[in-house]
């Protein structure tokens, strides 16, 4: 499948902003199951400095600053990618052995994966999370166990945008059994890492269908988040707890990280500005 993602963020300020520093993770990235063909970033007003950087996890981030009074800032990212999905693994490993192997990684792949086996700013590890993970993993193989964990979240956690905010900690998501896709990804990652497994956060998009008989609304899509679990001698395996599925050709990947804090789509600091209104318009279109 070929997709075009149009992601436009607009900030409107009630009084002029004299300086703004921004960091965005908006460019799509290549993955084993996805090839990026086009990627552009348009910033209005013209930035005084703008630097594209490949971050520690291979994502393409952009740092830019805007100097001089402005009341509006628009960041428009357009990306096109062909998504094929990856061949599913033909083997699986007992999770206990995987966890053991990550402590002393025998090869470069396992070492790289081990970076995602420890607590990170938004994904703590704890006995409670471990207990939750153990109930799902049982004595099974890692993909089987992680899939069960993802399904358990889908079954037992309510999708409720009002239940959490951007700063709700995972421990609370575990208790209150409600949240949004980002919370579910963080919950799964934290639980799996509490058992010593390697799991990482994926920020991206999902192709959606309009309700039957209606026309798809423009700008009504949104960014999405899910997670990946590491299987030695295979690589990373995607799981989407929000939709209880193994993402294949309808999930478009933007960036990987240890958690949201590594890959938040837009982040910025401003001087001045009064109140800021933020609007985000996302379109995910299949173009081939």
């Amino acid at each position: 499948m070929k997709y075009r993602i149009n992601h436009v963020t607009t900030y409107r300020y009630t009084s002029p902003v004299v300086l703004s520093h921004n960091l965005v993770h908006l460019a799509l990235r290549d993955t084993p199951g996805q090839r990026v063909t086009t990627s552009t970033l348009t910033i209005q007003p013209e930035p005084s400095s703008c630097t594209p950087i490949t971050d520690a996890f291979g994502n393409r981030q952009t740092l830019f600053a805007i100097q001089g009074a402005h009341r509006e800032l628009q960041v428009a990212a357009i990306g096109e990618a062909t998504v094929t999905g990856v061949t599913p693994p033909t083997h699986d490993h007992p999770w206990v052995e995987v966890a053991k192997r990550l402590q002393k990684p025998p090869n470069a792949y396992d070492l790289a994966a081990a970076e995602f086996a420890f607590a990170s700013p938004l994904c703590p590890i704890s006995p409670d999370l471990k207990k939750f993970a153990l109930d799902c993993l049982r004595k099974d193989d890692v993909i089987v166990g992680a899939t069960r964990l993802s399904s358990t979240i889908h079954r037992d956690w309510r999708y409720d945008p009002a239940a959490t905010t951007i700063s709700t900690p995972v421990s609370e998501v575990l208790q209150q059994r409600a949240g949004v896709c980002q919370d579910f990804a963080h919950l799964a990652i934290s639980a799996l890492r509490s058992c010593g497994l390697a799991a990482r956060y994926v920020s991206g998009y999902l192709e959606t269908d309009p309700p039957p008989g209606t026309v798809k609304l423009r700008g009504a899509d949104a960014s999405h988040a899910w997670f990946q679990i590491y299987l030695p001698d295979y690589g990373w395996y995607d799981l989407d707890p929000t939709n209880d599925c193994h993402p294949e050709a309808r999930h478009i990947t933007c960036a990987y990280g240890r958690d949201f804090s590594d890959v938040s789509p837009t982040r910025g600091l401003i001087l001045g500005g009064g109140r800021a209104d933020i609007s985000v318009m996302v379109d995910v279109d299949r173009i081939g």
Partner: protein
Amino acid sequence: MPIPAPAPAPLALLSDYHPVPGGWDECLWPAGTIRDHWRDTLIGLNALGHNGIEDRWQDGERALRDNGVTYAIVGEGSDGRPWNVDRIPLVIGEDEWGFIQTGIIQRARLLEELLHDCYGPRRLLADGTLSPGSVFAHPGYLRPCLSVPPGGGHHLHLLAIDLLRTENGQWMVTNHRCQSPTGLGYALENRVVLNRAFPRVFNSSRVLRLAGFFSDLLQHLRSVAPRNRDNPRIVVLTPPPPHPSSFENAYLARYLDLPLVRGEDLTVRSDGVFLKTLDDLVPVDVILRRVDDHSADPLELDSAGKAGTAGLLHAARREQVAIVNPFGCSLAENAVWLGNAESLCQRVLGEDLTMPSAETRWAADDVDGLCKDISRYVIKRAFRVGERSPMHGGSLNPEQRARLVAEIRATPHAFVGQIHHDASTMPCWSPSGLVPRPVVMRAFAVRNGTGWSVMPGGLARVAGNEKHAFAMQRGGVAKDLWVTTAGTIPRTSLLTSARAELPVIRGSGQVTSRVGDHLYWFGRYAERAEASARLARAILVCQESENGNADVLLRALPVLRRAVANHSNRLNALVADGNCIDSVRQLLTELQRTALTARDRLSDDTWRMVNRLLTMVPDQLGDGAVTVLDDIVAGLVSIAGFAKENTVHGPAWLFLELGRRIERANHICALVPALLDSAGDDETLPELLRLADSMITYRSRYLTHLQRSAVLDLLLLDPGNPRGLRFQLDAILTALSKLPTGATTPPPRASLDRLIALFTSTEAGAITDPGALLADTTITLQGLADELGSRYLSHTAMSRQLGRTSEWST
């Protein structure tokens, strides 16, 4: 080890000093004889005698108090508790110091290699030398720094290690401090105090000087500048107060003669770092950072980082600024690496480790082993986050121990256990004589052109009454550390190390907007405190002489000082009550706070007086209060004098002057109607003149004949009376006209011109009701103060985080 010398005549000073048998004492051999390198020092102190030491120490303590040395404890406000320095220094011979010197340099080289690898090729991770958890689980492994070349080409420029000597005489390292090691400023301060108290003993002990180390530090900071190497602009970046190291950072910056700045004083423009001054942005080349790295850039590092500046990391990435130590090096404050130092040193440097680490086991390696034997260990955080005190497994009760074990088992990566050693003891002062106390120390190293320089000295600490509590927050006591030599003492001072010719600079350098703000408020608080003290004194004097005006003044009090109205004992609230924001005590506290933040702009005399004033305020108003208030008023007047005579009349001074003049003008505007209206007759004229400190002037003109119009003329209209209103207006106008004009311009003076014209054309006899004129003045001045703030001081505003992103799912 040198052979014990034959027993000399016993020293009276040591007659009751008995080290713990079986332990190691720094100053005595087990047989009770004095170790060689201590002899000169002890003989010198002994010659002073117990009382002589006491007397000399009073001098040292005064220096300490006057300099306001405190170790502010986070959460206890900015005043903190006094820095406690012991009278007896820790003496270490040059030979032995050589061993420590070699040890710290070797560690510096090792840690540099480890950091270089983790932020670069990661070979040591790939070949298993470093365990993945010791790096990946460390919150100080800052991923954004992977794309940032370290300033000056090195990850580590400044390093501290904590050391103790075990019972068998072996030095052991217990901590690496790699970010912005605290203690540099305190080590200097302790030296100044001991040197002041015992100059003869200091000289006869042949103590190596510290100045050479700081000269190397300064030289090194210059050398890492990415540009302007000849004359780079270097700043010291300090966290916002209250912070434990606020004072020492100010002290250090002052000693190095570098501007002390906070994150909000800096701004990043076009990827370069600039200092926000009152009128301009000034480029910065090198930052000696005293803030933790994760909090230093809210854009790329921790978004909650309040101590930082957005874009700082990227400026370092673009090599527009060098940051010392570079961000990301807290990774080396890694107790797992500390514990494995011996094998790491072998594998990475191919050398034997010269100075061992205290045995340190990582819970992630063997959580069962550690938890089983927990009473043998000091449990510490593996990766230093926050300032949590270590826990001594052996001194916990069963319940505490169970809780700790559960915590370790839940997150074994986060904990290490360090074998507990009883540190060596040394003599400490007590009223009854010298007593042995365990001592630990911190040594410092900085890069120089060819390798590393080690400070010949450092910060030693002895535990307070609580066992194992060396930390200052827990009542530990500091010691100066004397490294003594048999050879000659090289003399270095920071002055001789500076380049031969300095360009002549007029004015007093750049003033940051924040410092301008604090000086403005310093001026206001000083003036307000003085007015409050005069008011209280006037009331007390009237009461003592049974003058009826006491009641008039007491009735006027709530109008002049609104906060006093809510207190039952209004006079006490005006002076001593810490809960009343208008009390002399509170105003002096605020004065001290603003002085602390603008410390590098105030003369030492001003600072000493500010600290002394607060100690004068009585807890309760009682007998002798008038004398105390006399002293406080005199002290405040001398602060005003210092400000006028001992400060360059540049932009910084102008803000102080404006604050003082605006406050004084406001006070007269409130005072005159409050006293005249409430009396209805002219009975209060003498008090009015006294409160405005204008009695002498009045008498010299009119002798004893008191007349309302003459008093009003002197207090309101006379341009020659420095205590009068007109004088303040003229002074404000003069200051406004001298304010820097660059990116910002002074507030329009039209309103002030109008007011002055009005005062010029008014005749005292025609003022029947001064209230209207004075209300007009108050409103005009308020508008002016607001303008001043928004023009010059507003870019002190912090930048703020934008909301992040919206997201949902199907």
